């Protein structure tokens, strides 16, 4: 029983990590209708950036904030310089461009920081939670994820900027007619995704250690989580992440063993795409032909 509870709680923690990156994916999907394959590697670069700051002696929270700001700017710059050039290109070209970004960032991280595993600190490491079932970093991850989710929800629901972003994604032409600067809304979406990804990276790195291929597996899980919850729905993505984290842990412990976790993710992705392409909480898209 103890094992079972432990699996659930650690599943919730890893699930929150998936949820963090899934939130970044949802962010871009919501504002541009694209699936950003380079999301994980953008987060990777952010995490390495944070590692460099920490190594230079900056305190954790200053690094945390600075990394988020820089990642936001980085996301905006990527949108404005690279992605913008393909705004009217077909799907295939965009997927190729995202894959190109993935390769470039992955290689860049290896080039600049090397392929050695690096230890990344957690601000709550060593703190006691009063029980052996969860450790402090796991609680920290869950808390940060929920703060992000609530903040995002409030942003989209209650602010004028959030409304403008939703409008720009939903109907760019009409949004432009009422005076929304659609191009900048898209860039803003990329910036926010970059910031969310940076948080995800900094939360994951203490668990799996920092190396250039850290994000590849996590990215697949994040995709699977986002799909499970519905790609356009932040709350759904978080729920998807949590469900997925727990499910993966339980399957790994009791059913299929840990070697097949990725295959399990593949099976989940394909199954969701086939049975409910819009995800558990998503609304299926209606298309005019």
């Amino acid at each position, binding site marked *: 029983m103890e094992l079972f509870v432990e699996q659930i709680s650690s599943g919730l923690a890893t699930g929150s990590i998936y949820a963090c990156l899934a939130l970044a994916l949802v962010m871009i999907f919501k504002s541009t209708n694209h699936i950003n394959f380079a999301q994980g590697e953008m987060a990777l670069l952010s995490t390495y950036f944070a590692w460099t700051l920490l190594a230079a002696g900056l305190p954790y929270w200053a690094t945390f904030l600075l990394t988020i700001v820089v990642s936001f700017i980085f996301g905006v710059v990527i949108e404005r310089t690279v992605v913008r050039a393909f705004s009217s290109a077909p799907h*295939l070209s965009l997927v*190729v461009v995202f894959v*190109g*970004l993935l390769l470039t960032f992955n*290689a860049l991280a290896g080039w600049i920081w090397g392929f050695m595993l690096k230890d990344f600190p957690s601000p709550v490491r060593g703190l006691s939670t009063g029980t052996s079932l969860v450790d402090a970093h796991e609680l920290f991850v869950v808390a940060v994820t929920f703060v992000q989710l609530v903040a995002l929800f409030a942003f989209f629901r209650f602010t004028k900027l959030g409304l403008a972003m939703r409008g720009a994604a939903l109907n760019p032409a009409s949004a432009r007619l009422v005076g929304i600067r659609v191009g900048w809304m898209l860039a803003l979406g990329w910036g926010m995704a970059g910031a969310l990804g940076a948080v995800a990276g900094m939360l994951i790195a203490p668990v799996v250690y920092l190396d250039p291929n850290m994000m590849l597996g996590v990215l697949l899980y994040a995709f*699977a989580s986002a799909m499970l919850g519905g790609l356009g729905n932040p709350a759904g993505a978080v729920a998807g992440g949590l469900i997925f984290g727990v499910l993966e842990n339980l399957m790994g412990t009791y059913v299929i063993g840990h070697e097949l976790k990725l*295959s399990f*993710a593949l099976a989940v992705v394909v199954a969701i795409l086939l049975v409910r392409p819009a995800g558990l909480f998503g609304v299926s898209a209606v298309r005019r032909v």
Partner: protein
Amino acid sequence: MTAPLPPFQSRTLITAALALAILAPWIASGFQVFQLTQIWVYAIAIVGLNLLTGFNGQISLGHGAFYAIGAYSEAILVSHFGLPYWGALPFAAAISFAAGFSFGLPALKLEGHYLALATFALALAVPQLLKYEKFEDWTGGVQGLFLDKPEAPLHLPLDADQWLYYFTLIITLGLFYLANNLLDGRVGRAITAIRDQPVAAESMGVDVALFKTLTFGVSALYTGVAGAMSAIVIQFVAPDSFTMFLSIYLLVGVVIGGVGSLYGAFIGAAFIVLIPDVASSISKAATGAIYGIMLIALMYVLPSGGWGLLEKARAWLGRARRAPASGPAPIQVPERRAGPR
């Protein structure tokens, strides 16, 4: 389409290229012959992916999986069932076709980004499946499987490397001939029609679902044969040769050669075989960076890839030569876009 040159000229070109390909093992050094052999192998795989992505408009980020299936089928059939390397090849092709066809069925419901996502997941999952301990008796687990190096049959005066080269060359040319015929005919028109106008194709009586799954199967067959050939050429298969990056490199090859151009595959294959050699002298990571930047730059500047550039150059040369004699300039036909919409 660009204006074709007088036929004899392109025929001389083809003959010259063929002669060069046939003479190569006698001119080039041992390692260069090996590299050329690898280029032919990758060319097959790239044609396979291009059939699906370039001509049929279904993107795949997971073709490394079919490459792996072909390679492992070949290796398992040879080492566990004692088939000769050439005898296992048709079975490897059939298994790859079956795998592609069955993945093509669920892929029918997916489009664009979603298909990319599902195939991406496939690419990530395959090495793990190959390492799985329950299959270890067959796949050799992390260790992989070793094969024997084939010798030239019939007492041909060739050493093993030269024989491998010619064997690969024959298979490659045969498969290109078949792909060319496939695309030239009714089936090829159906395949490209589905890419350009699925609704119109359907209303013209094209069985879209059938053709899409068949294309997936044929595409996997080509890539699987390439995988099997690579197993023969390298005499070794192991899970870590078939990571997600292999799938991405194949896509790089398609884009560099030209999306939707058959013979561009040779350019793409040469690129992905030769560039890592040049790049690794700079840094271990340089290959990835060069590939990535080339992908983005080509998509922006030259979506029709290396082959598109050659065709443009040829058309330009042809115009320059004809211009003084033919009075008014020929009417410009708007160029057909090579990339899928």
